[in-house]
């Protein structure tokens, strides 16, 4: 017979004391396990206390979803555990007997508390008393409750940690946003108040603490803010610069270049400027990067605005020049010129420059002419027009010097310059333009590169001024008709040869050099001319008449070109 405690009736006082003491110990153990937040510690305490409550050995603790949370021999063997787990699956929520190799008796006590199924497994050489089994059952119950509480704590702790991490992340994001707003506001202020590139560099320097440089695409310094501005400012060779720009375009974001963090200002894809943070130690962080990126955007807007202004001004100038060259009404043109701040009241000449005798008025040639004109203070009304560059020059200079200056800017090559006559009123620009064109054509027909002024054309100027060219053509035809026809039929150059021979004063040597033929060829051609025309080229009257004719021929050709 046993009592409710599981002790046999008639047990001694000592046994009762031991029993009560075990109960008290189990209570304290439960308190300690329940207070613990460490699931490993709970499992260890539970398993290691089994021998105190029963003549049995600890084997394992299993929790559904978590698996084997603690194992002792022989359950350290994976295959044995797999078999045991299969047995546990077949048990109800109360637990039951299981088979463990080496144990005559083995029991899985259901863990209490929580919603997860679990078992505390013990083994023994013989089945323990009912009292001992009761202790183990209570131990399992308390272990399950302690584990459930610890899991809950862990879950709460994890949630709290996640919340703390989320809060920290949010705070960091907010701080970054605040910094970003500060940067945005400061740089927007620069743009709104039209503080220009100097103001932008200063703002970025104040926001980041780093020195700031703004360069144009060629590496020329446009603005600097902060200490240590280099003097002179270093400029990389053009190929090296282009290589850097290509790399920056390829990267598409601020990129480190030596001791600098560099961003491009590229409105609508046009590379207009470069913004650099001087950071030799690489200390710039995300805050500085944001400032640099915002700054590059503001710089792009500023440079695009400046370019737009420049383009508008250029367009207006072009329209003005076109109007002047086309002979537009004086009052309209003058008011437009005044709008551009240009004084048309000063005397002008129309000057035309062309490259290589062709229409190479590309940007390089235009810029070369513009720089040469600027250096000689010729005025600012310069436009590309019909394959040439037209300058409305407001002062006279040695025009050959101007041509040489263009060649220097080009670094070689060819260039012709035609200079029209003076124009004192806007309506006279068209005439001056026409004259400059004629001077240029005369050069072209003569095959020489020089600066030719219409004022210096002499008889050509006289001939070009004749309104009815029929008489001039008949005059030329009377004297040079046979040679013109011969050239046309035989593809020869007798008229050109005769022209140069007469212009060179009958010198074989100079004529040969001018038309690039051998002296004997020249003599042969002159004999052909004599044979065809019957002229005596040594007769002064004949020579005067023929020189007038050849000049008239050149003038006609030039006029026809126009």
């Amino acid at each position: 017979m046993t009592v409710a405690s599981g002790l046999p009736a008639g047990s001694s006082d000592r046994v009762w004391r031991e029993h009560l003491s075990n109960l008290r110990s189990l209570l304290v153990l439960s308190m300690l396990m329940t207070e613990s937040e460490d699931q490993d510690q709970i499992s260890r305490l539970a398993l290691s206390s089994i021998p105190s409550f029963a003549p049995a050995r600890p084997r394992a603790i299993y929790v559904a979803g978590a698996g084997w949370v603690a194992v002792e021999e022989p359950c350290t063997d994976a295959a044995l555990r797999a078999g045991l787990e299969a047995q546990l699956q077949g048990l109800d929520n109360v637990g039951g007997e299981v088979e463990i190799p080496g144990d005559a008796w083995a029991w899985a006590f259901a863990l209490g508390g929580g919603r997860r199924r679990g078992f505390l497994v013990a083994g023994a050489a013989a089945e323990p008393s009912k009292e001992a089994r009761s202790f183990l059952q209570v131990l399992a119950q308390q272990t399950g409750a302690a584990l459930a509480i610890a899991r809950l704590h862990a879950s709460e702790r994890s949630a709290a940690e996640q919340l703390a991490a989320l809060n920290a992340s949010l705070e960091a994001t907010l701080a970054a946003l605040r910094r970003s707003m500060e940067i945005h506001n400061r740089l927007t202020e620069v743009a709104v108040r039209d503080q220009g590139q100097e103001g932008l560099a200063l703002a970025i320097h104040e926001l980041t603490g780093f020195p700031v440089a703004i360069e144009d695409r060629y590496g020329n310094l446009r603005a600097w803010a902060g200490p240590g501005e280099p003097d002179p400012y270093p400029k990389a060779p053009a190929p090296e610069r282009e290589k850097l720009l290509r790399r920056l375009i390829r990267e598409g974001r601020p990129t480190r270049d030596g001791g600098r963090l560099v961003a491009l200002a590229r409105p609508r894809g046009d590379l207009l400027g470069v913004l650099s943070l001087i950071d030799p130690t690489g200390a710039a962080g995300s805050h500085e990067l944001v400032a640099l990126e915002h700054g590059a955007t503001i710089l792009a807007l500023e440079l695009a605005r400046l370019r737009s202004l420049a383009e508008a001004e250029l367009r207006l100038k072009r329209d003005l020049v076109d109007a002047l060259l086309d002979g537009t009404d004086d009052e309209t043109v003058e008011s437009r010129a005044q709008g551009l701040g240009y004084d048309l009241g000063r005397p002008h000449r129309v000057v035309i420059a062309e490259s290589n005798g062709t229409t190479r008025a590309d940007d390089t040639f235009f810029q070369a002419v513009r720089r040469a004109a600027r250096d000689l203070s010729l005025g600012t009304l310069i436009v590309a027009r019909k394959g040439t560059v037209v300058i409305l020059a407001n002062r006279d200079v040695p025009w050959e010097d101007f041509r040489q200056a263009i060649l220097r800017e080009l670094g070689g090559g060819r260039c012709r310059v035609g200079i029209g006559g003076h124009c004192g009123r806007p309506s006279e620009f068209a005439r001056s333009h026409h004259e400059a064109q004629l001077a240029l054509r005369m050069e072209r027909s003569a095959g020489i590169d020089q600066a030719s002024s219409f004022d210096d054309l002499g008889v050509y100027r006289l001939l070009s001024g004749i309104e009815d060219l029929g008489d001039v053509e008949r005059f030329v035809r009377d004297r040079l008709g046979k040679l013109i026809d011969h050239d046309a039929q035989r593809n020869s150059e007798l008229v050109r040869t005769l022209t140069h021979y007469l212009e060179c004063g009958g010198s074989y040597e100079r004529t040969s050099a001018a038309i690039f033929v051998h002296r004997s060829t020249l003599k042969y051609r002159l004999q052909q001319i004599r044979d065809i025309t019957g002229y005596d080229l040594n007769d002064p009257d004949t020579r005067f008449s023929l020189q007038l004719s050849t000049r008239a021929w050149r003038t006609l050709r030039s006029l026809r070109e126009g």
Partner: protein
Amino acid sequence: MSLTVDFGIPGLQVAAGDHLCAFYDGLAERDDVLLPFLRAGLTAGDKCICVIDASDLDAVVGDLWADLGEGRTMVEHQLEVLPVERVYLRTGAFVPDLMLDFWDDIVSSALGAEGFSFVRSVGDTTWALRDAPGVVNQLIVYESRLNRFLPLYPQVVLCLYDIGRLSGEMIVDLVKTHPKLLVRGAIVENPDYLEPDEFLAAHS
């Protein structure tokens, strides 16, 4: 009527002859029990004997001095902080008889020659739990026999145990050998503890 003294933690009282076992989890929790206990003893003019791991000596003594505040001085020999090597293991091995002799000597001396009227002793047993298994059995025997020594003098003994180093079996034995337990800041009366004769008979 037995003498009641302040434990050092608000609301906790202990009586002369009490033998307490306190479970702690980590050094911070240990000091939360150890330091108030000693501080209350120093304030009350008790002889305080503290046996702890040598590595903790400076920290514990330093904290106690700091806690006393300016103008407070201890009576000579009032606090004795001893490393475990000089107490539990002074002969190289843990022997319960020698330990009980040690306590008898030091407590009787404190109450006699040194002139104290009450003795508080505290011992941290972490050292034993990392030594050879045999020491644990000896320690439990010693803890049980200590119950015979406690009533001999006006004293309180506080035993500190790191739960992180204890086995469940050890906890059960400690519960059976301590009339009072301090668990997570609360004193738990343990009427079911086993008298030394009972425990040692069952334990042998």
